[in-house]
């Protein structure tokens, strides 16, 4: 193994060095990288690092979780709301393997993480030692980069690379596995040099002006242009640049689930969400627009539906920082490689100011149909049983769009993303690409640490909540002010919906029983209440939000409610069903 050690041309003679253990060096690097919070769980092979951490408790915060999966989802939540890199500690073996789901989630949703795992002594590698697993090879497909350190002197340079790789370009998770001997080994620690260049790594492609000009020409000629945008706008901190672009061009804009909140949900040019449970107009009109401008999104199959019937009539302009995304799923007419923070202003400068009123009217007409056939029945159920949409609508009244909503995966997630209002970017935190049930509770914990001044509300279903409910213990111990809403339909609702619609109502193992969630919360010294009746909903939400600390609200909702509109699998986006 050869490592690249960045040797800056600094006058070495004057440099101060001091003797540090590998573990202390790691924490010194963290201080230099301005790490504030670590989510972790100790164990045998990472004990020297935890021992060193004992002396750094005043300088950084460590959150003891209840399961390593909780740690990594918390780090994801932290990263997604703060824009900083999330940090995770786990021990070797089972500690490290418990990170895999979170790594895969962070990989597919482009979340910057640096995960440190302990490893057995270097001389024990490959001997099937206690708690030894081949973490590097297990995590290779789900990390942007990973590396095993067996010598303490590598720690500063490898960690510098790790921080640089995790956060630059298209962000992603990095895992550094450190053998126990390297954690203990002492060496002369020089002043930390952050990494700014790796010769084989090009985080940002070169912007080619001719493509920007070509894109502008297409946009200026377009009669029915349509903008679809994803998380790239948020990751690139290009919210303002994006807003300027759509406001000048006057083009209607729809978001992917992860792009949501990049512009306020009530922005006049916002037409809603794309995809399987997105809004009616954006889906249907994808197959009617003449120029489709995709910004920082990757044409996931949940967005495109059937690819061979997706926007075939349109010229496609694709802005993305990751060259591998261009032409991956949808062939682009004009590829605009680059960071959209840089490419969008170039494009904005070249386009003409327009309003596209007739074209906007089409979106409004579809919205009207959706309002009548979908949204009205969701908000005004015929019976006394609450619907999920009603709950989110009532919540909007209290949050006024200022809260961070962290959702799990399933029907409640789709309903929340359909009906939630947001005023600020980085407010809609959810597991998009991987669809990880159990994400919400730990991610909300991390989100609260990442944005302590903002209201953070976890919204989960009765199924997903039970996958990581042990993190209630973390909330108890950290006395964290996180609100939790469980939308309980007593089913694994999304699977049940599919079984109803496509499997002839053969409800195969979706009938899930739950504990008394309020009593459970009480056992963790968390206040809460259960809501069954419509009349109690708003008071309960108010009580929850006014409560000083954490609060759990279990809300009983219709057992067999379905989420509509819906693009059935194998169908084109324009075949979206309203009921």
């Amino acid at each position, binding site marked *: 193994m*050869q*490592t690249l050690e960045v040797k800056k041309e600094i006058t070495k003679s004057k440099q101060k060095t001091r003797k540090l253990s590998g573990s202390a060096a790691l924490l010194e690097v963290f201080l230099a990288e301005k790490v504030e919070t670590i989510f972790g769980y100790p164990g045998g092979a990472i004990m020297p690092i935890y021992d060193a951490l004992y002396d750094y408790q005043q300088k950084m915060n460590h959150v003891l979780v209840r399961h390593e999966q909780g740690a990594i989802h918390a780090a994801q939540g932290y990263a997604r709301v703060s824009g900083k890199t999330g940090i995770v500690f786990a021990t070797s073996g089972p500690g490290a393997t418990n990170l895999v789901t979170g790594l895969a989630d962070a990989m597919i949703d482009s979340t910057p993480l640096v995960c440190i795992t302990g490893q057995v002594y270097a001389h024990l590698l490959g001997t099937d030692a206690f708690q030894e697993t081949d973490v*590097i090879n297990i995590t290779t497909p789900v990390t942007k980069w990973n590396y095993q350190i067996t010598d303490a002197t590598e720690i500063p340079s490898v960690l510098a690379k790790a921080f640089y790789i995790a956060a630059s370009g298209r962000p992603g998770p990095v895992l550094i596995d450190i053998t126990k001997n390297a954690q203990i080994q002492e060496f002369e620690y020089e002043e930390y040099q952050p990494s700014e260049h790796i010769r084989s790594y090009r985080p940002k492609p*070169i912007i080619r002006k001719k493509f920007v000009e070509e894109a502008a020409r297409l946009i200026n000629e377009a009669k029915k242009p349509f903008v679809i945008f994803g998380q790239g706008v948020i990751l690139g901190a290009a919210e303002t640049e994006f807003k300027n672009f759509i406001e000048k061009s006057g083009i209607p804009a729809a978001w992917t689930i992860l792009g949501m909140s990049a512009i306020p949900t009530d922005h006049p040019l916002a037409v809603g969400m794309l995809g399987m449970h997105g809004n009616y107009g954006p889906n249907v009109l994808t197959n009617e627009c003449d120029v489709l401008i995709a910004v920082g999104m990757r044409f996931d199959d949940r967005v495109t539906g059937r690819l061979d019937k997706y926007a075939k009539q349109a010229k496609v302009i694709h802005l993305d920082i990751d*060259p591998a995304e261009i032409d991956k799923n949808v062939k682009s007419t004009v590829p605009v490689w680059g960071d959209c923070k840089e490419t969008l202003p170039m494009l904005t400068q070249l386009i003409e100011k327009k309003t596209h009123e007739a074209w906007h009217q089409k979106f409004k007409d579809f919205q009207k149909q959706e309002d009548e056939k979908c949204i009205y029945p969701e908000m005004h159920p015929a019976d006394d049983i609450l619907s999920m949409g009603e709950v989110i609508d009532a919540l909007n009244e209290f949050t006024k769009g200022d809260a961070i909503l962290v959702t799990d995966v399933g029907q409640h997630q789709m309903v929340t993303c359909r009906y939630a209002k947001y005023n600020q970017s980085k407010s809609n935190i959810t597991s998009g690409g991987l669809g990880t049930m159990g994400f919400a509770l730990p991610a909300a914990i991390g989100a609260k640490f990442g944005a302590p001044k903002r209201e953070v509300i976890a919204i989960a279903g009765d199924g997903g909540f039970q996958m990581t409910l042990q993190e209630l213990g973390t909330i108890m111990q950290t006395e964290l002010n996180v609100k939790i809403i469980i939308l309980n339909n007593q089913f694994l609702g999304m699977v049940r919906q599919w079984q109803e619609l496509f499997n002839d109502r053969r409800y195969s193992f979706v009938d899930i029983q739950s504990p008394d969630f309020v009593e459970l919360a009480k056992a963790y010294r968390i206040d809460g209440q259960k809501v069954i009746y419509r009349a109690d909903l708003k008071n309960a939400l108010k009580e929850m939000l006014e409560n000083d600390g954490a609060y759990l609200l279990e809300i009983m909702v219709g057992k067999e409610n379905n989420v509509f509109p819906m693009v059935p699998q194998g169908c084109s986006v324009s075949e979206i069903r309203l009921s």
Partner: protein
Amino acid sequence: MLKQEFTITVYTENQIGLLNRIAIIFSRRKINIDSMNTSPSEIEGIHRFTIVINETEEVVKKLCRQIEKQVEVLKAYYNRNDEIVWQELALYKVSTDQIVEKVKVERLLRKYGARAVVIRKDYTVFETTGHREETDGLLEALEPYGVIEFVRSARVAIINASSGFHEKLKEFEQTEPGELVIENEFLDKQDEVFSM
């Protein structure tokens, strides 16, 4: 689009685990690697992978982008067979007695451009290089006399164009999003910037 043989050339750092990172890009998509070779390249400290697969150009192009996305990969590009010169090396172990008695060894060696690497009382090892058909041809010729062992190497390939890798890269760069590797200021100054 038709599937055909493509040779992918990848320039990389020398890093443990990178072979795996590259290999799983293929296995994840259930694509078989026909042959793979790693070796040093014309640039000091930079390794070169030569990978042969049978796929459509569309797929190969996407694979190259996925490979290039890896942090330690400098550049990946692909070629059709008519754009490269390539060779494979093969070794054949046969019984010396059999050969001496029954084969006109000299003619055989001339015909297949082979040579004897080892001649012992009990066996002889022949070696030849060439395309698949050529190395297969000698195998066929020797088979009636009993081949004790046979092994063939992965393909190694060099592009036809006289300008070599850098020029070819420039051509690719016209349609590709990255900077030119040749213009990378750090590439030739390895000793000043990096210590291995």
